[in-house]
């Protein structure tokens, strides 16, 4: 629970940036997903459950953990689906191995061992996915190109943003103040929407009242309250870390439109002013919600694009995730940077023979 946050800041930082910035985010690992899955349901006799007030029932605990890459690996060409054999193989590799993704080579660097952090117990329930990529539109399975302006912004962020350039492991960590840390390290936001696979803590809880759908993410216990009443979005001058969401039912699909994002906390660094994310939740069987999202931000991408992430049912509950109360990362990263400053000053002093002021 609370102290889980004190695990590797490097891994966490990587994942946050992955969520917010990376074009090709590959989820990691589970130790024994098959054994941990929710009780099997007989889908032949399955009927869509409804809440007492008649909504299709999405309630329960779900995970977005997936071994499917965001964008389609080149080797699959135009193939949208894996063969059964390929899907089984990828699933087996996913649950049997641990990975640390890097920005250069996602998913192919098996150095991150989830068991070190005792995380496997939370990484239950992922199901095989036959898709070759999460992105389904454009049909080539790749996120459309950035606009030239957005490409410039992203490059600048990569060079100067919090925990700048993860592509270069030797780059010095700049941690002069807390604002040099990323949003997750600061316990400010773990991202979303959209709902994507994370390396861990991909779990969330949905409950429905007559007027609202609530999504609680395990990560930070962050939540989105989605009113169903059809009212207007917040005024443009009010921003929300997870966007301002409005939902309605189209048949058995919950459609959620989100705007009013907060600058600096958007999906993949999109433009908070122009970003609109539409999500579609459709329960397709006892243990699966088909979740599709469409990203529309004409100032960031040259056209809208969509992805489908299968959400798999897991066993609850979700515990308290007291992030800021136990944020050792912020202390240790900053204190480490000060120690590095001091060491550098000592070194400079020895080299030059000129005394340097010390704290």
């Amino acid at each position, binding site marked *: *629970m*609370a102290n889980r946050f004190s695990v590797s800041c490097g891994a966490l930082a990587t994942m946050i940036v992955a969520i917010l910035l990376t074009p090709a985010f590959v989820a990691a690992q589970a130790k024994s997903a098959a054994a941990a899955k929710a009780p099997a349901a007989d889908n032949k006799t399955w009927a869509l459950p409804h809440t*007492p007030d008649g909504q299709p029932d999405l309630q329960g605990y779900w995970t977005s953990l997936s071994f499917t890459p965001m964008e389609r690996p080149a080797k699959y060409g135009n193939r949208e689906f894996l063969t059964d054999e390929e899907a089984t193989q990828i699933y087996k590799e996913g649950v049997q191995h641990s990975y640390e993704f890097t920005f250069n080579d996602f998913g192919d660097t098996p150095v991150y061992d989830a068991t070190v952090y005792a995380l496997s117990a939370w990484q239950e329930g992922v199901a095989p996915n036959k898709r070759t990529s999460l992105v389904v539109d454009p049909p080539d399975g790749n996120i459309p190109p950035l606009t030239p302006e957005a490409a410039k912004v992203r490059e600048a962020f990569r060079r100067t943003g919090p925990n700048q350039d993860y592509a270069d492991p030797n780059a010095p960590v700049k941690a002069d103040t*807390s604002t040099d840390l990323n949003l997750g390290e600061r316990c400010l*936001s773990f991202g979303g929407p959209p709902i994507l696979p994370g390396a861990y803590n991909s779990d969330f809880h949905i409950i429905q009242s007559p007027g609202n759908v609530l999504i609680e993410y395990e990560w930070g216990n962050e939540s989105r309250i989605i*009113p169903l009443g059809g009212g207007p979005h917040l005024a443009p001058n009010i921003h929300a870390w997870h966007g301002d969401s409005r939902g309605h039912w189209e048949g058995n699909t919950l459609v959620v439109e989100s705007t009013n994002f907060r600058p600096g906390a958007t999906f993949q660094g999109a433009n908070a002013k122009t970003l609109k994310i539409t999500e579609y939740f459709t329960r397709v069987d006892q243990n699966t919600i088909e979740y599709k999202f469409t990203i529309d931000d004409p100032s960031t991408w040259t056209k809208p694009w969509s992805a489908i992430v299968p959400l798999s049912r897991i066993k609850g509950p979700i515990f*308290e995730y007291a992030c800021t109360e136990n944020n*050792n990362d912020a*202390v240790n990263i900053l204190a480490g940077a000060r120690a590095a400053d001091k060491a550098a000053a000592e070194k400079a002093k020895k080299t030059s023979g000129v005394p340097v002021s010390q704290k």
Partner: protein
Amino acid sequence: MKTTAVFVFLFACTPIGVQAQTAVQQRAARTAPTASAIPAPGQFPPYKAPHMADGKPDLNGIWQAFVAADIDVQDHDAQAGPHPEIMGAYGAWPGGQGIVEGGEIPYKPEALAQKKANAEKRMVVNITSDPHRHDTGDPELKCYRPGIPRANYLPFPFQIIQGTDNIIIVYEFGRVLRTIYMKENDPEAPKEAPADSWLGWSRGHFEGDTLVVDSTGFVPYTWFDRAGDYHSDALHVVERYTPASPYHIMYEATIDDPKVFTRPWKVSFPLYRRMEKNIQLVDFNCEEFVEKLLYGPYFKDPSK
């Protein structure tokens, strides 16, 4: 005209006021409710809550307490806040009547001394990468989870969302969230707290229209107010949320902690439904406002 009418009705409720009823009052009566329609504070007429499709009382909505208990759950005067030389009235703290039944919290003698020490050190913040970070300072100052029942009387709204098997309360302060497990023998929600937490492990049920929430499994770090009122990890809170009108919930919490108090004690106050058109919680992600306070000692000194 309006002011006159209100004045007259307040006055009319007293024996002396009866003698003062005049033509002015009679004229006012044509445009305002009768004196008997103004509710006496603390008293609600009998009320039956609306029920949801599943038959359970409907507590959904955005609610807020309007007491000054976050400053001090007991009776207290208004006071200057921190740094009055720059904060002025912005930073001053309102006085208020206490919410503790009987007025006094039944501390054990040594615990009362601890409460006083807490109050003196409420703004002493010393953040380390170990649990000593919790040794001093009011958790509210640090944007930490406010604990129960304090979350319910912070000067921020909160939203009750009633699902089929669980109720979730989302608090605007820090956007913190607690789950109240409502299903009996729920295989996904153990009866006992699996581990200690800031907002406790809460199980609920309805007694008539009253939502009763039983919470244990608390960390010993939360306070009840800025006055240093506190508890241990033996805290046990039983809350009762009773709908009192379409716009009110009467809230009470019984607080038991044999390590700190000589007997259980109770707080109570009304919750008010927020009625603004299109009301919704907005973000108060206070982590971003406390970073220099918490981590400033680890920032780079720009002069060096």
